[in-house]
């Protein structure tokens, strides 16, 4: 089972869209895929038309076993074969505090996922923005971090902050960071310049970029992954080539 987390310190960068669309594409290629919506905003859960509710909330999951809930019990199948979801829950907004109370707080997500090792080939963790115990726990669980970056100076700064944070964490040594450009508007000179410049500074940038497109925004109306309703749209094709590139760059 390989675990990928989509993450950016900054919100609104196309993180959830990436998690939802890539998870859909992976499942369509035959990978048994689970998407865990860790963001209390519950956007991924909404896209899949699932109620944002986890019996027992985050606390129940952390308690686990007989007294609480196991992850296995709260998984919901989506409309797409091979793709399941752990829905978000409003209580996830306090997940940080709950993790703080739990023993070995940053190992908790990995521990919760372990029993599902044989059930899924791939797990996507859609993380909430900002650096918190939730995101740290996701970093520790993940094999790779997918970081959508809008090609602007401000976004570049958040990537820099993230990389600096990771550098200081010896136990995250094995974590592969895969940044890619998201919400790209080729009419904007700043975007084009940033896309030329940033990869020279961070060569780990993936070659595929995701365009800013109204098709992607319509995911909220359609309530399904983009490639499910507009498989040939430029953005859907971009996600497809992004997924191929991510697969090539995954460790192991």
């Amino acid at each position, binding site marked *: 089972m390989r675990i990928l987390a989509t993450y950016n310190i900054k919100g609104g960068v196309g993180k959830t869209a990436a998690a939802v669309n890539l998870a859909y594409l992976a499942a369509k*290629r*035959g990978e048994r895929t689970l998407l865990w919506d860790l963001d209390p905003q519950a956007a991924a859960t909404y896209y*899949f*038309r*699932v*109620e944002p509710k986890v019996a027992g909330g985050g606390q129940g999951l952390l308690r686990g076993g007989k007294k609480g809930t196991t992850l296995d019990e*709260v*998984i*919901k*199948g*989506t*409309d797409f074969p091979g793709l*399941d979801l752990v829905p978000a829950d409003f209580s996830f907004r306090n997940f940080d505090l709950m993790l703080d109370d739990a023993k070995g707080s940053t190992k908790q997500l990995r521990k919760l996922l372990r029993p599902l090792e044989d059930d899924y080939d791939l797990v996507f963790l859609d993380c909430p923005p900002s650096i918190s115990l939730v995101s740290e726990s996701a970093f520790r669980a993940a094999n790779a971090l997918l970081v959508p970056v809008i090609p602007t100076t401000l976004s570049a700064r958040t990537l820099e902050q993230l990389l600096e944070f990771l550098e200081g964490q010896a136990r995250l040594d094995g974590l592969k960071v895969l940044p890619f450009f998201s919400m790209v508007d080729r009419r904007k000179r700043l975007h084009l310049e940033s896309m030329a410049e940033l990869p020279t500074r961070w060569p780990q940038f993936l070659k595929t970029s995701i365009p800013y497109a109204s098709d992607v925004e319509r995911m909220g109306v359609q*309530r399904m992954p983009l490639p499910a309703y507009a498989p040939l749209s430029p953005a859907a094709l971009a996600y497809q080539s992004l997924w191929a590139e991510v697969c090539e760059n995954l460790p192991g």
Partner: protein
Amino acid sequence: MEYLIPDGLATEALEREIQEHLFCRVESAGDSEIIYYDTFDWALYSDGGFLTQRGDMLRWTSRRDGTACSQQLEAEPELVRDLPAGPVRARLPSGAENRRLLPMMRIQTKTRLLRMLDENEKTVVRLLLQSHSFEDPLSGRAGSLAARLRLEGVRGYDKERELLRALIEGKLGLGESEGPLLGEALRMVGRVPGDYSSKLDLRLDGAQRADVVTKQILSTLLVTLEANIQGAIANWDSEFLHDLRVATRRTRSALSQIKAVFPEDVVGRFKGEFAWVQQVTGPVRDLDVYLLAFDDYQASLPPELRSKLEPLRDFLLAHYEREQARLAEALQSESFKTLLGSWRDFLQRPVPSSSVVPSAMQPIKAVADGRIRSMAKRVRAEGRAIRDDSHPEELHELRKRCKNLRYLMEFFRSLYPAAQIKPLIKQLKVLLDHLGAYQDLAVQAHHLEDMAEQMQAEGRATPATLLAMGALVGGMLQRQQAARDGFAEVFAAFDDAEHWAQYRALFWTLEADKSSR
């Protein structure tokens, strides 16, 4: 869960009825085709799995618990060993490496998908109304199968699934379908999965007349032989020819070893004709053996010589096409068809009510005892006569004797307690393998020397290649010598007093024979 839609109930009517009860969205999921693959001898099925192709995805499914894995298919599957590495490839049995994956059945399905929705219009259960037709690629036969209703639950929505299940089983009164589509489709063409095996599995009646039972044995061998003709002609993989040759060899062995059950002129004629089959199928089999062992040949050489052996592979492949064409011609020839036709006629003809052929009317068990006894004694006597300086021909003769003994025990194994005859056959195989290695290495080394000369004459071999072939021959002769040196020890295990006592207990059934040594 899958339910059979009874004959006479139109799927459209069923669909309307379901929609009356449930909030559903109907989607025509369209047509699909699934191809079931297996090796000719059902190696995958016997190993506990199904291999299917849908579009460009290859899927392996466990027969036991339904777990599955998939991998993308880049081209139509051919030999198991050529399938690209991936989760499916990893699940296929290693013993099937050299076999071709054949399409065993194609099933076309028309699907209407009904999605039961909740208030968010989220799918909570899927219902698939499916009508199926099949096509058997090997026989070309086609037809339709019973329509089915498939209930697919969505994880986390168990209540909704149970609700629908109650509707289907209660109100609609449908019964669960038995077994997978493949089984049903195969049944329609008179087959069952696993219906071919090159292994002899005869159930004989020891009290029956020897000529009747011998015909039963030979008929089984004829079925195996005929089953492999198409694959040997098309060269789907090397095992078709191998199985065809083994069935031929066993036929000849049965004809000569189950003595005095048929008139001599019949035996003489068919023995000669099957010898011709063995001869015309020999050259391709030899080339198969070399090509299958080629990687091992290379690996047996020092690393710097390995690549120098490649021209030999090219030489073998260059001859292969011509020899395969000759083989295909022989197997499609009138004389071969006539041979099989008259052989079948003979085997199907009822035995005469009385016969002057000495053993024809004896019970087969007495004949089997006598033949195995006599052959076992002969193996023991000839084996004991072999000294360190014996001529290689003597070991070759002993091998032939051992093979005949093995075939006799395999033909008649159902006449003896399985627990007692099985270890005897197993031990005999050890001796036979040893003698086989000794003989085959000598033949191959000799053949390679001939090929080296031929390659040189045709300008296909550089001195480096000839040196590499020389090293290969040297290695073979060394291993042959080792086999020769180890013979006494392997034979001693056969000649062991305790082991021999087991032979006596099983085959020396008459008092008179018990006293003979």
